[in-house]
Structures are given as structure tokens and as C-alpha cells.
């Protein structure tokens, strides 16, 4: 791995963290409507995971999608603009926080019905299989999504047809405010893959290099025809489920304990300890990341709203 790539991973994680902090501010100022689900604490999951994909590989995720969008190569500008409902947003202000996408970057959204995108992921892989594309579909979802029927239909079909899907469960310990133990018959989510004859493993989602290594290996196996596999990535969200979450379901101490496992801090220490980057170089990344987000906010605030004609566009393709 080149030094620039190590730095790129760090940079992406910093941009996500700063972008989410800024989004929280904008939300509190009333500039972002609807729901806002922050990715703070989980940055290493999608950063490590998506760094392991090739451009042909498709990514689809749930509604906690800002970080994934950054990792897929969307700019902070088009993400913040979408959050502000501006026409310069990646979905022209029609999707909002939960519906970011850029199909040209093989990022297939941002889907807000829990678990509903899993059968669609099976379909993306079916489409690639049908057309002979050597692509892998990476489908991310939370622990909560593994309790809904869609999960089981999607995994079963993917295995029956031996489709190239990497199922990635981001286990952040809570489906909204309900612990995994209170909602799922097995608390080790990866065990659910066994019921579908699928290989599975767990990785530490606070360690970007560990996530990346596991994803690289498994994506390679899937590309070579192993069939679908499930990767459970253990992580933790430092903020509430969404803005305005009273967080009555967990103790402050628990959050503090996890914050000590900050994925950006862990990676920073790793880079310095292994002499891959100096503190000064990483400080520069911190500064650049913040500048990128500040610029994005300025861009988004200066951007126009969609015009009234946009209301009736894109209902059907043939207009």
C-alpha cells in the first residue's frame, strides 16, 4: 500500500467526522430538514470496506449514508448541498440526507426503509451475473435490519443463485434504541449467515486496517466465485440514532468508553507508530479535511434551491 493511500484513508475519515459535526450544527440551526443520522464513530467501517473495492463493484447502503458517500467519491459539496435541499445536491435536493447516491461512482444509495435495499442488492448482483460482469455488490446494513424478513429473503436468494454479494452488517449494538440482545435471537449476527450456508466472519470496526484487510480478502474470494459471504463489523455510534435522540437506552459512561476507541485516533497512532506518516503530516490532513467541509458549507449555502419545475420532473422517464 502506497503512503498516499494510507493518507487518503485518514483524510476520508477526517472529512466524514468534520462533515457530520457540521451537519449537526446546520441541523440545529434549522437548515437541514427531516431526519439526520450521523456516522460519527463508525468512520472506519465504510472507509476500510470501500477502500477494498474496485470501481466495478457496487455499493448500496441504508440511511446512515453520508460517510459511505464520501468513501464512494462523492464530494463534501454535493453531500452538504443535498442536506440543505439545494439543486446542486447529488439528488438535486429531492432525496435528502437518507437518499444520497451517484450511480456513476457505483454508489446505489442511501435507502431509508430498513432492510428493503437488501433484496435490491441481490438484484444488482443478479444483473451483474446475468450480464457476465465480474463485479461484487457490497451491501451495508445495520444490526437492526437483520431482524426483518427482507434480510432473510435476500440472503437466501443470493445463496441459492450463488450471486456475488458481500453482506456487511454494521453492528453498532443498537437498532435505534433497542440493544441487539433485546431484538435478535442471536447476538452474534454473523451466525445468521450459517442458516443460509454462507461463510461469515467478524471484524473490528474501530480498526480501519483490519476492516480493509478482511474486505479485500473476502471481496477477492467472492469475485472468484465463492458466492455471497457475510462480514459483521463491530462498531459504535458516538451520537444518537438520529438528531433529537434522548439516548435513554444507554449510559453516558458506555459512550465515553467507546469514544476512547475512536477509530480516527487509533488509525492516527498506527500511522505514527509504524512511521508511515508524521504527526505534522496528519495535522495537515486534519486541516485540509476541515477546510474541505467549510468550503462545502459555503458552496451549499450559496447554491440555489431547485426551481418549481423540478417538482414534476423525474416522475417517469418518458416525459
Amino acid at each position, binding site marked *: 500500500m502506497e503512503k498516499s493511500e494510507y493518507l487518503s484513508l485518514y483524510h476520508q475519515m477526517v472529512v466524514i467526522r468534520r462533515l457530520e459535526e457540521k451537519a449537526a450544527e446546520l441541523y440545529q440551526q434549522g437548515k437541514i430538514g427531516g431526519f439526520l443520522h450521523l456516522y460519527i464513530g463508525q468512520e472506519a467501517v465504510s472507509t476500510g470496506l470501500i477502500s477494498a473495492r474496485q470501481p466495478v463493484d457496487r455499493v448500496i447502503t441504508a440511511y446512515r449514508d453520508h460517510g459511505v458517500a464520501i468513501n464512494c467519491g462523492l464530494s463534501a459539496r454535493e453531500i452538504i448541498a443535498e442536506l440543505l435541499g439545494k439543486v446542486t445536491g447529488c*439528488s*438535486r435536493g*429531492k*432525496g435528502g440526507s437518507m*437518499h444520497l*447516491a*451517484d*450511480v*456513476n461512482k457505483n454508489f*446505489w*444509495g442511501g*435507502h431509508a*426503509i430498513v432492510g*428493503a435495499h*437488501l*433484496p*435490491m*442488492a*441481490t*438484484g*444488482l*448482483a*443478479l*444483473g*451483474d451475473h*446475468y*450480464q457476465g*460482469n465480474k463485479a461484487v455488490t457490497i451491501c451495508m446494513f445495520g444490526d437492526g435490519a437483520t431482524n426483518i*424478513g*427482507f434480510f432473510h*429473503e*435476500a440472503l*437466501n*436468494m443470493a445463496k*441459492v*443463485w450463488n450471486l456475488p454479494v458481500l453482506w456487511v452488517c454494521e453492528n453498532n449494538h443498537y437498532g435505534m434504541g433497542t440493544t441487539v440482545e433485546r431484538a435478535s435471537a442471536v447476538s452474534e449476527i454473523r451466525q445468521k449467515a450459517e442458516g443460509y450456508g454462507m461463510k461469515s466472519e467478524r471484524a473490528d470496526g474501530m480498526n480501519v486496517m483490519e476492516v480493509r484487510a478482511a474486505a479485500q480478502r473476502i471481496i477477492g474470494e467472492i469475485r472468484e466465485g465463492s458466492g455471497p459471504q457475510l462480514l459483521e463489523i463491530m462498531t459504535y455510534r458516538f451520537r444518537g440514532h438520529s438528531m433529537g435522540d434522548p439516548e435513554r437506552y444507554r449510559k453516558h459512561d458506555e459512550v465515553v468508553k467507546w469514544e476512547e476507541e475512536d477509530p480516527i485516533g487509533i488509525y492516527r497512532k498506527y500511522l505514527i507508530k509504524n512511521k508511515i506518516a508524521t504527526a505534522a503530516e496528519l495535522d495537515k490532513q486534519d486541516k485540509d479535511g476541515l477546510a474541505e467541509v467549510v468550503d462545502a458549507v459555503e458552496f451549499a449555502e450559496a447554491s440555489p434551491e431547485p426551481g418549481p419545475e423540478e417538482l414534476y*420532473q*423525474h*416522475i*417517469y*422517464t*418518458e416525459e
Partner: protein
Amino acid sequence: MARMTMREAISQALWEEMERDPKVFIMGEEIGVWGGTYAVTKGFYDHFGGERVRDTPIAEAGIVGAAIGAALTGCRPVAELMTINFAFVAMDHIVNEAAKLHYMFAGSMRLPLVIRTVSGGGRQLGATHSQTPDAIFAHFPGLKVVAPGTPADAKGLLKSAIRSDDPVLFIEHATLYQTRGEVPDGELLVPIGKSIVQRPGKDVTIITYSKMLEISMKAAEELAKQGVEAEIVDLRTLRPLDMEPVITSFKKTNRAVIVEEGWKSFGVGSEVSARIYEQAFDYVDAPIKRVAQQEVPLPYNRTLEQMALPQVADVIAAVKEVL
């Protein structure tokens, strides 16, 4: 012209489109090895193979979801739901995903997807397998809802649906498969979103679609013997709804009866009559009548079931009320 059944017409449309475009494939429960529970896809598996005639598990949400995903990659899947009653199991993917992705992602995602399914009662299948809930699906912008009443329209509309880049719910009727009609030879494409006059007349306008077209035609024949000439407008597509032939006919006859198989409340008749009042109020000579299914879950017993379904006599009686 060839005379054929609705089943043959639909089967021919699928076959021709699969031969024409390798991106078209079909998927659903028992469509392959079995040959389709209504035998529409009989012979397809042997000819096209299991990749293009994909048998699926009994998992409707999975079927529609996977078809959506495949459509996003540029394939043109035709997913079959054995009956529309099972579409409720896949409701999220039909109305929350298929109907919305193109709009929500500002046109960047395209869904050249057809969901074929079977609606209608009259086969003594009991309350859960006999519904005609077509109107529910027509409620959602972003979805196209097609329900042909003749073999020619079935063939031409299905071919158009397969070539459309929008998601289309294609509703066939369980008791129309044996219905015969003339189907033009060669390439046949019928545009989606166009209503049509199926029988000219001057005294009253009957607006209907799907199975109720057959019932309405029979009623019109009876009425003709009594000196009443009914004009029949077949909607063919419920969304987007083409009111033009309806309004044109109504301005001529000033009287309308709407015949649908589903329940009257919040139904096709409610929508069409409201639009006539909105668009042609000055032409109204009599209150518009609606003929529809009795507001009960459809019973198994044959006599009771037929009591609940709209009959030729109900249409004749309604026409006489508006004359």
C-alpha cells in the same frame, strides 16, 4: 390477424421480446420448470434456459426487490407475482422503491421493470386469493398500472411495458386467459396511457377495463336489442389515466356508468366519476352510476361469490337508471 386466447397473446409478447432483446429475462414462482401456474410461460424454460427463465423461491419481496436491482443494472426483468394478492407481501418494493427511485434520485436511476400479476375473483378461491385491488396500485405516482381487456391489447401493451424504462405493474385477469380475440400479425405495440373506445354508441358511456370489459360488452349487446346504444371506453391503463376518450364520449352521451370489479369505495369508479364531474359538469344529464363488487371479502361459495361480483344484469340495470 390471428384469433388467439389472452394466454397465447401474453405468452407471444413475452416470447417475442425475449427473442428480440437479450436483456429481457423473466423471473417468478413456478414460471420455469412448472411452466407457469397459468401456463403463460409453458415451453419457455426449455427454449431460453434457466438463466433467462428464473424460478424463484416463494419470496415476493425478494422477487420484486431483486428485479428492481437487476433493472438498475440495465437488465429488463419481467417479474411475475403469481397473484396480485401476493403483491401485498411485496408492497414495500412496489410502492416505496419501484415507484420512487427514479424521482428520489433525480432521474439518475432507471427501472425498466415489469411486474406481471393476476387479479380478479370468480374462481372460488376465497377471500385472500380473489381480490381486485388494482386501484390501490394506481394511487402511486411513479408507477404505471396497465390492465388489458382484450388479447390484442394484452400483447401490445405488454410489449410496450417491457420496452418502457419505467416500472410497470401489468395486471392480467384470472378468468380472461381463455378469452379469444383477433390479434394483428407482426409487430404490435399498444401505447401505455391511452384509453380507447371498444364499442361505439350514442346513448350512454360505459367506462370500464379488464374483465369488466367483457361483462360490459355483453350488457351492451343486450341493451342494443332494447334499442339502447352504449359506447364503451376501455381505460386499459389506470395510471397514467387517459380521460380524453371518456370526456369526448360523455360530452356526446351525457350519461355514464363505470364498471369495475374491485370494491366501489375509493375505487376506479370514484376517480373516473370525480374527473367527469370536474371536467364536464355542464354535460351531466343524470347522476353517474358505479357498478362494482359488493363491499365484502369475497366468499368461497359459488352463489355468494357471484352475488358479490358485478354481473351483466347489474350493468344493464345501472344503464337504465341513468337513461
